[in-house]
């Protein structure tokens, strides 16, 4: 029962982080801030959701497989974000510095 409640909390929190990440990816002003929001989905949300599922699976082989998936995600997602940001810089899109007003002035 306690395990069910904890896993429920983890899954809901994970869902919330996916939602926030999605919202950020839509609403943030430029590529880098959007990536920052989206990376929430594949790090924090992934940890929480897979943690919740692991609690549901209990001490079985499934949990070990889930742990392997989590490890894989934690290694590859930041690498993908890094590659994306680096590709953006190489193609000439530099992060904007300065105040937030810059965005409003442009619009």
């Amino acid at each position: 029962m306690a395990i069910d409640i904890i896993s429920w909390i983890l899954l809901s929190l994970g869902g919330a982080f996916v939602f926030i990440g999605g919202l950020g990816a839509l609403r943030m002003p430029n590529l880098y801030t959007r990536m920052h929001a989206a990376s929430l989905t594949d790090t924090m949300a992934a940890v929480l959701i897979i943690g919740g599922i692991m609690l549901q699976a209990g001490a079985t082989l499934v949990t070990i497989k889930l742990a392997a998936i989590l490890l894989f995600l934690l290694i590859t997602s930041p690498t993908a974000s890094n590659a994306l940001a680096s590709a953006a810089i190489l193609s000439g899109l530099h992060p904007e510095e300065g105040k937030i007003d810059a965005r409003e002035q442009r619009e």
Partner: protein
Amino acid sequence: MIILFGVFLLTLLVITALAIVQTESLFAAVILTGIFSLLMAANFFLLDAADVALTEAAIGAGISTVLFLGALALTGERERGKSTNRLIALGVVTVTTLIVIYATFDKPRHGDAEAPVHQHVGPWYLEKTPELIDIPNSVTAVLGSFRGYDTLGEVFVVFTAGIGVLFLLSARSAARPESANPSAEPGQGLRHYLVPRVVGRLLIPFVFLFGLYVQFHGDYGPGGGFQAGAIIAAAVILYALLEGEGQALRALPMDVLKWLVAGGALLYGAVGVAGMLLGGNFLDYNVLASDPIAGQHIGIILIELGVGITVTGVLLCVFHAFAARGKL
């Protein structure tokens, strides 16, 4: 609940398809096609077709995206001007849609146990698999043994496709022998770029291990030669992207790849012929060992190995053919 997921995924599929048609950037279209395949894989999984889902994810979302990107690198990223015959296109699409919708009226209800497809040979396969072949994954039993001829045909389709691509794409490189000079090597990959290189090098052995697991675990769970071939090819392609294509070609030269392409299909055929020589029919695995069930296991492992080898070889040949075109 499952029906809700299904509707959600199918809606996303339609949205993705519309986005693919709409976008003018071919690069975006390729990425969207990858997303489409991934959604399709999830959809297959919902329908309990785990083997098909694995294939779709590995080939549709993985390898074909890389091949499309390779093709884009040779052409351009923008779509050329729209064709003027849009009315004709609209007419064709409308008529086709109406025909498809009309055809669905005759379709049995989703999951209907009385549907003809579930009444024909399916029950017999499911009933006889534990008795005749004795492996848990009845998909592999059907694919490898009961319908071994069909799978042999599929392997030769893959083989033929690989030969065709090699003929079409390597035609010009033969005419220009100086491009084969290994010292002038433009494909350096991502050597200068540390983070993906370190992580990629870390992952490649595990990707290989997973490919071998999928290959040899196909009797017991989702997987088999087609999926494993795609995964192992993906590992080599990752290596080529990180270290440069030349380095990958040094590890697995084109001659070896051609042997893989032919050898896998040959292994499959040889298992069939071995059955004939031992007194059975073509692709009859019962005679491969003294115990018919052990013979079935040996036969299925061998033909799956043949499938995996051919698929790996063909996918890598196609990749290298695209990559070599870029150098010209």
